[in-house]
């Protein structure tokens, strides 16, 4: 769209279409599916022993509220089987999602069951579960099983699925969702004293519920904790704006990876760091990723042929 036409009605419409409906290669969705599927499986592993968090006799809220599902199931004595079945169904759907067996259906099932899980037993769940639900939702609408999947292997001999493009809007929604998460989280933090006086990371890393390392932060490292507090605050608030330019986007993502890896190493936050890092796949350039993917495939084929 030329700058002269951009603000005309036609120009706005074209820009809108180019932004939301441009077609992209499918590899990025396949990687997202695999990454989020693995995070889902790790999340299920974290919710064991199964008898603690899934059957009605485990650590579940008292019946009442919501849709009344728990109450009705417990009334007919089906609370325990339902809990175990839900765990099994989640395990199957995340496994199918990861390996790409009926990928679209598996992703839809994983999302629906993850929502149901939060209704069935929210007690052991943390913010990472909400992030997973919100990131899985746009992925439902993407064709995420066209490559890197059992579905693709079964379709071998048909049209070359690597070349079949898919719409960009689910990817845009995931990116938007991540930006909203950070902006909201950053602004909430700004209203809290510990983030403004620079002590938040000190307290978060020292908390007995979260810290991984038994030793307290040595005084010589306190300036690092203070700097990390302010860096986190500014980065979270600026993340969405930084996505707008390729250079600042790269900086925002590098800082994000560093902070989530750092958080995961010094604090036990469940699958939070993992799900955030998995969602960063959405920020990869789909065309460049596809090019790398096809080049790597060709090289592998050539090497195999030479070996033969």
């Amino acid at each position: 769209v030329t700058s002269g036409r951009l603000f005309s009605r036609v120009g706005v419409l074209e820009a809108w279409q180019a932004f939301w409906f441009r077609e992209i290669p499918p590899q990025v969705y396949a990687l997202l599916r695999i990454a989020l599927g693995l995070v889902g499986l790790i999340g299920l592993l974290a919710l064991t022993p199964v008898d603690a968090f899934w059957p009605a006799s485990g650590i579940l809220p008292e019946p009442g509220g919501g849709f009344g599902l728990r109450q009705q199931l417990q009334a007919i004595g089906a609370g325990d089987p339902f809990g175990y079945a839900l765990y099994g169904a989640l395990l199957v759907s995340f496994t199918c999602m990861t390996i790409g067996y009926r990928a679209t259906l598996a992703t839809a099932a994983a999302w629906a069951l993850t929502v149901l899980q939060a209704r069935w037993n929210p007690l052991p769940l943390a913010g990472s579960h909400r992030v997973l639900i919100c990131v899985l939702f746009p992925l439902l609408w993407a064709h995420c099983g066209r490559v890197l999947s059992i579905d693709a292997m079964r379709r071998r001999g048909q049209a070359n699925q690597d070349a079949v493009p898919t719409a960009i809007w689910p990817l845009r929604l995931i990116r938007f969702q991540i930006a909203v998460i950070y902006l909201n989280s950053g602004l909430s933090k700004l209203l809290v004293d510990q983030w403004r006086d620079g002590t938040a990371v000190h307290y978060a890393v020292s908390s007995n519920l979260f810290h991984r390392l038994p030793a307290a932060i040595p005084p010589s490292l306190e300036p690092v904790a203070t700097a990390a507090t302010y860096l986190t605050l500014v980065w979270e608030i600026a993340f969405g704006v930084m996505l707008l330019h390729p250079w600042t986007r790269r900086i925002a993502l590098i800082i994000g990876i560093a902070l989530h890896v750092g958080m995961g190493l010094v604090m036990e936050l469940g699958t939070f760091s993992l799900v955030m890092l998995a969602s960063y796949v959405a920020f990869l350039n789909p065309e460049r990723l596809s090019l790398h993917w096809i080049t790597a495939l060709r090289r592998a084929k050539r090497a195999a042929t030479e070996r033969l």
Partner: protein
Amino acid sequence: VSDPKSLFRWTRVLGSTSTLAHMSASRWALSAFLVWYIGSLLVAAIPIPAQIHHPQPIAEVRDSALSAHLTPWLDRAAGVVWAIATRLSRSVAPIRPLTGSLLVQSGLAQRWDMFASPLRYDDYLRVKWYVSPAGALARKASWAATRLVLPTDREDRVRGPASLRSFSMDRPLASALDRFHPSGNPTDTASLQAFAEALRPAMRYLTRDFESQRLDRAERVSRVEVWHGRSDLPPPDVATSPRRALRLEVLRNYYAGAIEEPVISALYSPYFAVQTEGDIVWTLEYIEER
């Protein structure tokens, strides 16, 4: 929106037919969904006025060059954000019902203030089970066992990947403390009841676990007490070694397993009874007679 013909007529009002020719009906429908979805995310992300806490300027700026420079700026920024957020929250109140309910029901509600308020103290929970003979009518217990249940992992060791499961075990207890911690006033029965309801599922599970592991058929748990321990976290730049060493010594007693003791007195502790161990102050906040 589902009917392309009506959509076509509708869009003619808004733009020329040449504009419409550039976008298919399905794309118009999808565009409407995208606008609604993004609008809903944004509206849902704005907290309701009661959830927006008014920030007060930091009274005493820390002895850190970075904090000295940034804290006054951030105080001013927080004031601006608070004013905007409060106004926005009131402005979007009428459209919340249009957007909120569906997002909440579909699990897409947007509350992202996790880790916003790091605690300035460490929390602990220990459970004391009083054991009586199974057939005895009197509530008098013969022995009791105390176990530290929060946090699940030891504090004196590195928490590796296995602690992922402990995190899930800690969550129900930690969120009960976070959301329903009683006020400390024995006459405030409502807050005590809410806290008890939040803790009960975990207590039911832990008690069953204790009964299956430790009791024989001739015994039963007649009373469950939950003592909440709290210990202030030292602020940055304050030496922690002596306090920490003392606390770890206290905690190691619990790490060895449930502490069993005979019950001599028939008198039980009342709500909000206090005990001190090292720098941990324990308060009795949950009682269940069985």
